């Protein structure tokens, strides 16, 4: 393994890693927003919207991210919407992640028994207070393991961005292999950088799970 090669191309990987992190986290944040909205719509069974949400969730979960990205990247310009690859990446990740997050949050909400709501109501709490202080904290702590798994899954999915010519980690590694045929070094750096990004997320996630399990969460 050539140490010289590694030190030479380290900055290139660093740049690519930032791109991965930026788009990855933006995508995750958007997924959370979409997920919360969809979960709320389904929980309250809002007419029409809940039907649309169900269609979106099935569409999003049952098609590969790569296909979704191709639709955005090659399809949108055809109907006159111009976007750059970064926006496409974020949108694609949010489209995929939204449904995964929605399912995680919805299962959490539905796992809180109805009688807990009645217990809160019998103490005179209104709908908002019941949701805010009794249902959501419990639903959230039930959702956390699935939520953490989704975040890690989505960050890893960024590796397909190279297909729409985003210069992320995967793209950089493939590029270097193609140019210099330094397979070992390029892949080594790729693995190391993914671990640098994902290990902290994983550790934070585990800490969050412990916190909501043992210390409770909420009011």
């Amino acid at each position, binding site marked *: 393994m050539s140490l010289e090669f590694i030190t030479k191309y380290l900055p290139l990987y660093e740049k690519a890693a930032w791109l991965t992190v930026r788009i990855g986290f933006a995508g995750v944040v958007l997924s959370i927003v979409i997920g919360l909205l969809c979960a709320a719509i389904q929980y309250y069974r809002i007419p029409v919207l809940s039907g649309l949400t169900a269609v979106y969730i099935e569409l999003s979960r049952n098609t590969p991210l790569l296909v979704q990205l191709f639709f955005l990247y090659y399809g949108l310009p055809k109907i006159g919407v111009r976007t750059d690859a970064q926006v496409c990446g974020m949108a694609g990740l949010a489209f995929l992640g939204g449904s995964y997050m929605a399912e995680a949050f919805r299962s959490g909400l539905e796992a809180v028994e109805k009688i807990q709501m009645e*217990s809160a109501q019998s*103490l005179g709490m209104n709908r908002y207070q019941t949701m805010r202080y009794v249902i959501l904290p419990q639903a959230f702590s039930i959702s956390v393991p699935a939520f953490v798994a989704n975040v890690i899954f989505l960050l890893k999915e960024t590796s397909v961005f190279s297909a729409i010519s985003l210069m992320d980690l995967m793209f950089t590694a493939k590029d270097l292999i193609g140019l210099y045929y330094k397979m070992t070094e390029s892949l080594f750096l790729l693995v190391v950088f993914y671990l640098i990004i994902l290990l902290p997320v994983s550790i934070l996630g585990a800490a969050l799970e412990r916190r909501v399990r043992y210390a409770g969460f909420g009011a």
Partner: protein
Amino acid sequence: MAGPLLQDVPGQDIACGQALLTMEHVTKRFEESLILDDISLTIQKGEVIVLVGSSGCGKSTMLRCINALEPIQGGIIRLGEEQIDPKSRGLTSIRQKIGMVFQSYELFPHMTVLDNILLAPMKVQKRKKADITEEAVILLERVGLKEKAGCFPRQLSGGQKQRVAIVRALCMHPELMLFDEVTAALDPEMVREVLDVILALAAQGRTMLIVTHEMQFARAVADRVLFLDKGKIIENAPPEEFFENPKTERAKQFLNTFSFETVKGKDKQGK
């Protein structure tokens, strides 16, 4: 835990002879089946009413209707002058006046015992945290759970959870307390500690409507016993009268299921 428990808790004036809860011709249906059939009932301030009957006869549903957790299809339920209606705007204010204790405790599992008690008085009644805490600690001490204030519900036994649930309801200063089979899920040894708390509340003159299968307890605590069968109140009498001389065959049958012929006695007869 005997003695003057839970006295000087606000939320009630011991002025008997004034109707607190009235139900007039209340009907409740689940789809086709009739659960409550033309129920009329008045509970005076300070009265302790025990509701008995076989399972499925509508006892729990009646409590749930009183707390507007179930809509009714006919008749009217009033607390004082106010009508109880699941759709009314003033519902949350009426519910504050009615304390409810559930068979399955329903403490909030993500909060400590103290936070469980403080939540509604703070958020709903906007009372000062320090005041409620003081009151909560006094009440917890009286039910023997002062040192559990910082515990989570999962760290408590069933009987302890149920006593916390009672304190939580009391801290809202309700005018009427509803108990829905509160000892049905408890181990036999824990039943007593919960019933003692309810007895103490009765001694203090609280208005209560209690659903229970503990007949000894019913007899001790009740001013009046109501026997519900197929959604109708078919007996309404003081406990002595109900337990000694039930008027209906159905009530006799029901009470018989609680007594046993001894096997030894049968042996003797055989000889």
